[in-house]
């Protein structure tokens, strides 16, 4: 075996990041800069200095993301292309409705909600209006969850590829839905227009796509698809809520912003928050996976784990009860329904434990890896959640007259923060590993969920935007 002098020389060259970039990377960066410049040129009369900074800051961050994680370049280009296509199709579609004598608001609503009055292009109606894009996202995520589990059970390589492709597609469609919705809000009226991160419906979409992206990153990094099913379960739950919210509450309708939300802060505070929520949710699902595998290995049916599933089920039930029927008691007092749902969750837990034993511990992911990804995810979430909370404080200082008011949402953000701060201390300083941390991250999701939607449902406060 001989190595040439040139090869040695190469090995001892400093690995320069800039030099490692390909022509595609530079092209990608150029497209983003040109795109941001074009957006600036078109809309700078609507933006204040902060918003211009956010625009270019976002462009630079996205370039960095694309360079660092190459797959996202394709994602971004796909999102941009589909969104632009949809926006281009909007023009003629709206014109057609306006000539029928509709006003612009109704025309957008008709388009966005796939109204029967619309006989526009097939592509548009079934693919690219925001509502259909979001429906595609929902369907793809739910299918991907199933295919990931199929892959876990059978180790079918093709199924794994399909699941990954579905998740990437769902993420693309989710982002396209948000982009188009952003445009739709401005088409309704420029004064109504706003970035679609302003209510529960919109942030649930954001939650789904961000969680999926974080997952896809770890899937690529660790070259395993075994975690997919569990992680996408939490996304599917979010999709379930989203669909229910859409069809039962008409939450997908675009409403103008209350004055308190009219601020550039929303553009950075909310997305930062959801990187945190998404990462914590992912960590919790891996924690759950960890516990399941551990119990499957121990070859004794674990009542604890099923108890946890039950607690989760009842928690979800109470949320839905409160939102749907106005109170938890209404649902809980329906004993038959409660027992049925609890039984459903019990069967689910039992089924998963049995299924894992059938798969066999050797075919399940290594516990060390799950522990590692869980830790990384919480570390990622913690950093961004800290930024989000502090951005929130800065926004509060501008809107409410003080950076900290012990408002329920703020307080629960603090509780979430303290919880994960304690988690990280235990792991990094005390060297705690494995089972207890897995339990803890599962409990962490309950706390995070309460901070995310529980506060809005059960507690009132400044984040409810009741006044002003």
């Amino acid at each position, binding site marked *: 075996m*001989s190595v040439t002098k040139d090869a040695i020389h190469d090995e001892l060259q400093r690995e320069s990041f800039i030099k490692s970039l390909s022509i595609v990377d530079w092209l990608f960066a150029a497209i983003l800069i040109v795109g941001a410049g074009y957006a600036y040129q078109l809309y700078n009369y609507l933006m204040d200095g902060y918003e211009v900074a956010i625009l270019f800051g976002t462009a630079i961050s996205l370039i960095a993301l694309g360079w660092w994680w190459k797959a996202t370049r394709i994602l971004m280009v796909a999102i941009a292309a589909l969104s632009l296509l949809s926006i281009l199709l909007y023009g003629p579609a709206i014109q057609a409705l306006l000539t029928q004598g509709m006003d612009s608001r109704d025309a957008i609503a008709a388009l966005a909600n796939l109204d029967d009055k619309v006989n526009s292009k097939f592509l548009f109606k079934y693919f690219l209006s925001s509502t259909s894009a979001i429906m595609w996202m929902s369907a793809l995520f739910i299918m991907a969850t199933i295919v990931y589990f199929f892959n876990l059970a059978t180790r079918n390589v093709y199924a794994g590829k399909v699941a990954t492709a579905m998740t990437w597609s769902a993420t693309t469609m989710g982002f396209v839905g948000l982009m188009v919705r952003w445009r739709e809000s401005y088409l309704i009226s420029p004064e109504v227009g706003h970035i679609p991160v302003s209510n529960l419906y919109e942030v649930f979409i954001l939650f789904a796509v961000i969680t999926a992206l974080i997952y896809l990153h770890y899937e690529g990094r660790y070259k395993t698809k075994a975690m997919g099913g569990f992680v996408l379960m939490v996304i599917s739950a979010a999709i379930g809520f989203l669909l229910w919210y859409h069809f039962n509450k008409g939450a997908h309708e675009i409403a103008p912003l*209350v*004055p308190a939300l009219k601020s550039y802060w929303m553009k950075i505070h909310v997305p930062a928050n959801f990187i945190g929520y998404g990462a914590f949710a992912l960590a919790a699902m891996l924690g759950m996976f960890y516990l399941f595998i551990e119990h499957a290995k121990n070859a004794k049916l674990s009542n604890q784990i099923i108890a946890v599933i039950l607690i989760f089920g009842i928690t979800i039930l109470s949320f839905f009860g409160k939102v749907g029927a106005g109170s938890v008691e209404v649902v809980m007092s329906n004993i038959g329904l409660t027992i049925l749902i609890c039984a459903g969750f019990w069967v689910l837990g039992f089924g998963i434990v049995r299924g894992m034993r059938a798969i066999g511990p050797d075919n399940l992911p290594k516990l060390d890896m799950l522990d590692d990804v869980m830790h990384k995810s919480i570390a990622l979430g913690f950093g961004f959640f800290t930024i989000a909370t502090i951005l929130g404080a800065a926004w509060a*200082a501008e*809107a409410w007259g003080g950076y900290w008011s012990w408002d*329920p949402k703020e307080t629960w953000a603090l509780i979430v923060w303290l919880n994960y701060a304690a988690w990280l201390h235990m792991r990094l300083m005390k060297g705690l590993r494995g089972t207890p941390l897995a339990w803890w991250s599962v409990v962490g999701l309950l706390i995070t969920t309460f901070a995310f939607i529980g506060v809005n449902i059960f507690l009132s406060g400044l984040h409810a935007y009741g006044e002003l």
Partner: protein
Amino acid sequence: MENNTTTAKATVSRRSVLLDFLGSMNLAITILVIIAIASAIGTVLKQNEPYNNYIIKFGPFWHEFFLSLNLYDIYSSGWFLVLLVFLVISTLTCIYRNTPHMLREMRNFRLNSKIKSLKTIEGSKSWAISDVDATEKTVARLFEVQGYQVRRKQHDDRTIIAGMRGRYNRLGYIFAHVGIIVLLVGGVMDSTVDIGLRESLGLSKIDNTTEFVKDMPEISQLQPNDLISFRGNISIAEGQTANFTLLRIREGTLVQYLPFAIELKDFRVEHYSSGQPKSFESDLVIIDKDKDAKFEHTISVNYPLQYRGYTIYQASFGDGGSKLKFKVWPFYDFKLRTLDVSGVVRGERVLDTINGEQTMEFIDFKKYNVRPAEEGDPEGKKFVNDGSSVVFKVRNSSGVAREYTNYMSPVIFKGRYVFITGMRNSPSEAYRYLHIPADEKFTVERFMKFHALINNSERAHQIAVQTVDQVLKDAPDSDKYRQNIITTMMELLDKFNYGGYAAIDNHISNQQVDAAQKAKMREAYLKVLNTIMQALYMDVLQAEGVDISKPITEDQQGFYLAALDTLRQIPLYGTPFYAQLTDFTHVESSGLSVAKLPGTNVFYLGSVMSIIGIFLLLYLSQQRLWAVFYKNDEGQDTLLVAGSGNRNVEDFKRHFQQLVDKLSRLVGENKNT
């Protein structure tokens, strides 16, 4: 002597025990968890509500208990502050104990590592080498190109080349923790600690009896520099000026004076085309005598004004004393003598009524009432504006008050335009509404005239006689019961007028007859009542100039039915008059928050430090490499390579493996030459 040494030792160990306790992770985690739980309690238990609400909710025993624990104002309670202080002390202890170690770790390349201990590191690898000098250079270069800083040290038995990168991870620890302390210091600077301090020193007393600011006792007043920080609220009406703000503390208030005055020139609410509020803006004039300055500034939600360390925010809005004009229609005056009344919001006006003196207290005025449209709105609107409304109380001489809300313009109700007036006996009840039908000119006049005619017993009697005569025109022997019918008619009219259908039902149930007869009786009575009402209504129409020889229109008949439905409810309305809002001059007030928060920048500094620290601490890994050159037991020149990383161990293992692979190739080459 000996004793002294022992004591000294004991002191040292006692000190270190204390430090161990304060700096222990268990204490830190415990405090974090307790703070989290206490914070959660504060969100579930609504803070700073009037004590009465708590007494109703928990009963007097638990109320006292919760109050003694300060659970109603957890975040300013002493014990919560103590928790925070403990958190600070615990964090400080950690910083104190770990910082020297961290700083050392940043600079220490561990050039004295022993071969034995390096060999125990997982993944370490050794090669037999020939050209030591060349290999040393290659290794050092390889470490450098990977971004490691490299140091070399020659020992007697070995030469060590040590590499290190990511040293700022250690700085992250210091930044994150110092940042938290700084942030908390900023937070405490801006908390209500100083008010508590003034209170306990007897410098300030929270007032909960005084009604007007000008009557506030001096001990409840605060001058501009008395407090380090505060957040107060003040409501200023358009055209008014204020140089103070009110601090709400527990059940009471303190007046905080400002070094300048704020005048509200104008307050505006802008609306979306759908009717929802879009923006709230106040045009302020700041008058600062100290600085001899006067300037205008417009604030709105999210865009406060900062001036001399004070920040003025748009917080809320309300009525600032709108001028109102009413036309008061008496319900039981057959001459229908109306009264023009004027007043201002938060003012009052005494009226003479048939029920004695009653006071109208004007509570609130709203220029617009926007509500979501009902499903299937005919015009497809999402929101409906019901126009202006006024809320007032009517208090009788014994002090009992009812609350009313009246809408100025007619709105559509069950297909007709009606004037809405709501009544409730207490603020906890929902309003019950009276819908006064509007006539063709969109006024209440026809309805009021109809009602006045019912009260005009002389004229009503005449009409009753005419009606009965008309009905009995062809009946034989009608004289016998003619008078009876007229009397009954007038009786029923009277009962209906003062008690609605309920009074008639009451009258029937007092009769000594069986149920079947009662039903029959009721049917007959209602027929009689309807006959006279219809006749009275025709008289009203005739007075308006309607030709009643022709059948009346559907609309006129609809009015009659609507009026009947309203008339029967008037006895429940509570006041003997209807106050119709006829005109107004809208005067708004703006609710401002005024804050002096000098800790804000300290808080932000701490925040930025923490964020930098957290990112360095969590995402940067401090990694070390060692290459040791020595002769092994057989006298062969040997290279041993080992490495470690303090974060993401799995990632480092992979990185180290790549490095080893590279070295294998490079060292292999060297060996061949």
